[in-house]
């Protein structure tokens, strides 16, 4: 049929044509936008930064509906009025061209197509229900970023359906650490660095993985003359604040700790009274530690006997105001075959120093308890976790249940145990080692729903991708922060939604719950928030105004017992014996021995980046480029042998992957280690991700640490050679 006229779908609707006819050209340009003065009248709205996951308190200055600057919130206990670079970089995230703007569904051809929210809810609800009916609720899992709003709406959704399968990104952060601490101390304390006289950092760098308050505490400690040791194969960015750098051979921190325990006991520099009174089976521990002499450890760690003794004596003589800092991912978060044992020993060395819950020691503080409205329906009994974490007789009985062995998901999918999953603000396909295995695993799910602000490697293999409002566009749940002085904090929406079809996570989950007939479990965010404040006896309106409220301190000094099986500090732990390991921690070799001529590929954070998403922020990507931050650190001597000069293009390869980068030749790293930052090498198609370096996860195989199931992220060996040589 011949069409003579085009059917117009005119978008612009002029209500009065006369306006268009008479409009003066002076409307265009010149002064027709608000000028500088308007910033003076701008509004300041409290928010919590999302540059990383620390959620520092900030104020957002908004003028004419647009963000014009961000500042640290002086009232907030983490930022204390300051902000790191990530905050400034991420402030314009809402306006990023890569934002997802509407729900997407993958069609039969494997291509995404936009759909309506109604359709998304309907289809997801039906599919999820079918899967649960067929395979049971434990075939469904949820991958979250553990913040309160995710717990209120994500965790509860999963639990309402009867599943306990909640995983977080912690598997590739601190699964080993948390598992170790859980069994010896009953949880992870935080080091009172500001008041300690001696602090030993193992792998953790406050200057690289920044949380302003921690760094400020360290500065205070330095000003007060405390002694700071940094144990790290690499001289990290916190090094200027340290008195001494112990350039340990990667993967041998456990040996150092065992020897420290040996010296403390041999030289009677430990808190005998504390250990005997509050320790479980201390005598077993005492006996076992005898074998780990400083001489033995020196051989393992490449540190001198004198240094090991000196560290131990410094700690012992200054107890209880002497700590081995709890770390995060650092060296033993999830990196080596011996990481859980290392974590246990960190806990136990602290116990030897008698510093548990004393000023200048390792503190157990709690945050405010925040409650939901009473009339909400509570989830019933849950099916056991698919990873068996915390279940006696299961492979990962020891693993911390709050995090789960998230890196094992591809296996569960392959075994047919997992069929459906939701994932929010988390990118497991890229963040866990071995991209191919992860991709295949997540693709194998019958239903994968990803909620995010832009595409990620995980979103690319999802069946549905739901667009979330970005952090400045949403109010979240009231959340608490522990510490000697606990606080209550709130993220308050600062700007209107840029993309009208995006939704808050809380909206998405409660609307989906409505669709699935689970609405009794949920209420709206405002009610949640008002209830939480009411029950605490604080004003929600005040919280909306200033973003943070300090509460009375509930912290009491002195040992309060441990949340362990025995209720004491477990110098020997039955659970480990039950799981087929030894009750007392013992030396475990790293899984991979580095062959002559190769390097152990280690990684860590860079202070302008967070995980793998921030390299898509132009300001931050620019800094990486300008200062060549995506280079691999190689020891000068090794580089000389390989004929590599500073700035040379090099190839990093092993049997898994080959990639190009540039070399940073330096004296500041152990010869066996090659350090590459963990933020680069994204494979998601995002604007600023072209050619943005390598990913450490491409070089590490899919593997498990025996005790916690953590992914052993630094158990890999690589070759480095000059490109073109």
């Amino acid at each position, binding site marked *: 049929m011949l069409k003579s006229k085009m059917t117009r779908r005119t978008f612009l609707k002029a209500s009065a044509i006369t306006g268009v006819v008479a409009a003066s050209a002076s409307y265009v*340009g010149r002064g027709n936008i608000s000028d500088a003065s308007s910033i003076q009248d701008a509004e300041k709205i409290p928010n919590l930064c999302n540059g990383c996951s620390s959620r520092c308190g900030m104020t957002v200055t908004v003028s004419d509906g647009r963000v014009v600057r961000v500042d640290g919130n002086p009232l907030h206990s983490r930022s204390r009025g300051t902000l790191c*670079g990530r905050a400034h970089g991420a402030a314009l995230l809402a306006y990023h061209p890569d934002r997802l703007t509407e729900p997407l569904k993958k069609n039969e051809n494997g291509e995404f197509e936009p759909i309506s929210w109604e359709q998304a809810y309907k289809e997801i609800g039906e599919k999820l229900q079918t899967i649960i009916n067929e395979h049971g609720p434990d075939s469904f899992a949820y991958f979250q970023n553990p913040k309160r709003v995710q717990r209120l709406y994500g965790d509860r959704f999963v639990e309402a359906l009867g599943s306990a399968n909640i995983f977080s990104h912690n598997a590739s952060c601190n699964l080993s650490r948390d598992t170790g601490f859980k069994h010896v101390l009953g949880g992870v304390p935080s080091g009172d660095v500001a008041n300690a006289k001696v602090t030993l950092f193992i792998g953790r760098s406050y200057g690289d993985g920044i949380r302003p308050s921690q760094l*400020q505490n360290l500065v205070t400690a330095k000003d007060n003359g405390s002694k700071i040791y940094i144990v790290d194969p690499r001289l990290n*960015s*916190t090094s200027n604040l340290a008195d001494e750098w112990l350039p340990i051979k990667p993967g041998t921190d456990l040996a150092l700790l065992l020897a420290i325990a040996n010296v403390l006991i041999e030289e009677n520099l430990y808190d005998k009274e504390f250990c005997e009174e509050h320790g479980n089976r201390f005598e077993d521990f005492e006996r076992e530690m005898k074998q780990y002499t400083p001489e033995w450890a020196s051989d393992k760690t490449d540190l001198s006997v004198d240094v090991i003794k000196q560290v131990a004596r410094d700690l012992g003589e200054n107890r209880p105001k002497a700590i081995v800092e709890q770390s995060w991912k650092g060296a033993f978060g999830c990196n080596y075959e011996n990481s859980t044992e290392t974590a246990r020993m960190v806990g136990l060395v602290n116990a030897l120093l008698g510093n548990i819950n004393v000023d200048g020691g390792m503190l157990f503080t709690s945050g405010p308890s925040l409650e939901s409205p009473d009339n909400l329906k509570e989830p019933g009994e849950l099916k056991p976790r698919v990873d068996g974490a915390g279940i006696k007789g299961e492979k990962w009985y020891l693993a911390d249940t709050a995090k789960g062995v998230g890196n094992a998901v591809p296996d569960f999918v392959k075994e047919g145990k997992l069929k459906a999953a939701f994932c929010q603000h988390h990118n497991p396909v890229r963040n866990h080692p071995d991209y191919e295995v992860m991709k295949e695993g997540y693709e194998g799910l019958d239903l994968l729903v990803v909620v995010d602000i832009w595409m990620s490697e995980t979103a690319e293999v999802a069946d549905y991708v739901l667009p979330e409002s970005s952090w400045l566009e949403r109010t979240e749940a009231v959340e608490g922060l522990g510490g000697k002085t606990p606080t209550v904090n709130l993220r308050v929406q600062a700007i209107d939604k840029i993309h009208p079809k995006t939704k808050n996570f809380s909206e998405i989950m409660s609307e989906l719950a409505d669709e699935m007939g689970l609405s009794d479990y949920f209420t709206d965010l405002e009610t949640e928030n008002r209830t939480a404040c009411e029950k605490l006896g604080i004003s929600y309106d005040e919280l909306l105004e200033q973003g943070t409220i300090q509460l009375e301190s509930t912290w009491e000094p002195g040992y309060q017992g441990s949340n362990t099986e025995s209720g004491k500090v477990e110098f020997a732990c039955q659970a480990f014996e039950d799981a087929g390991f030894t009750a007392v921690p013992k030396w475990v070799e790293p899984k991979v021995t580095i062959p002559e001529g190769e390097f152990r590929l280690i990684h860590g954070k860079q*202070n302008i980046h967070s995980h793998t998403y921030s390299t898509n922020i132009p300001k931050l990507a620019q800094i990486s480029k300008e200062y060549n931050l995506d280079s691999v650190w190689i020891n000068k001597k090794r580089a000389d042998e390989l004929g590599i000069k500073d700035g040379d293009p090099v190839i990093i390869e092993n049997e898994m992957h080959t990639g190009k980068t540039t070399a940073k030749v330096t004296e*500041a790293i152990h010869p066996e280690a090659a350090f590459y930052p963990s933020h680069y090498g994204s494979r998601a198609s995002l604007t600023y991700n072209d050619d943005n370096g390598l990913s450490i996860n491409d070089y590490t195989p899919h593997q498990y640490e025996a005790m916690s199931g953590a992914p052993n992220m630094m158990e890999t060996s690589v070759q480095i050679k000059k490109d073109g040589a």
Partner: protein
Amino acid sequence: MARYGMLIDTIKCVNCYACSLACQTQNGLPDDENFIYFLEKEEGTFPNVKRDFLPVQCQHCDEPACEEVCPTGATYKDEDGIVVLDNSKCIGCKYCGVACPYSARVQLHDSMYKKGTYEDAGREYNYTVEKCRFCKELVDNGEQPACVTTCISNARIFGDLDDPESELSKAIVEKKAKPLRADLGTKPKIYYVR
């Protein structure tokens, strides 16, 4: 009337770029231009190594080389000792940039400036040779420069050098802070602890 200066404690500096990013936003600079840049030096051999981080910006010299060479008088020292630029006089000859021992000058120009210039609405850089101005607009308002407020390790102290009681003056004495390359005779007013 004051004589503003700053102290940067590089022992506390962790090279996190927060100051430069805050500066960039405060001054509305494009992503690839900055008034603060970072130098890094490594001393010694493994395992006795020291890494030295040094954020550098305009040192607000008492005898600024840039002011001396500026042909048009666009660069001058204001009554508070802040070295500023009258960008309605700057011709962009860049002599200041060549004369400055600290390489603290930045010529702001980019194709992006030519686009979307709603001219009278905002700051005009068009090819003038800019620099750190100690966030004069904030300081005049009783606030601190953006790099100081954002600094997560409180490595920067801003204040009046003429006031012996100021936190700055005291810290300089106490920490024996020194300007960079005082031997050049420009009398810089940023003091470094190293």
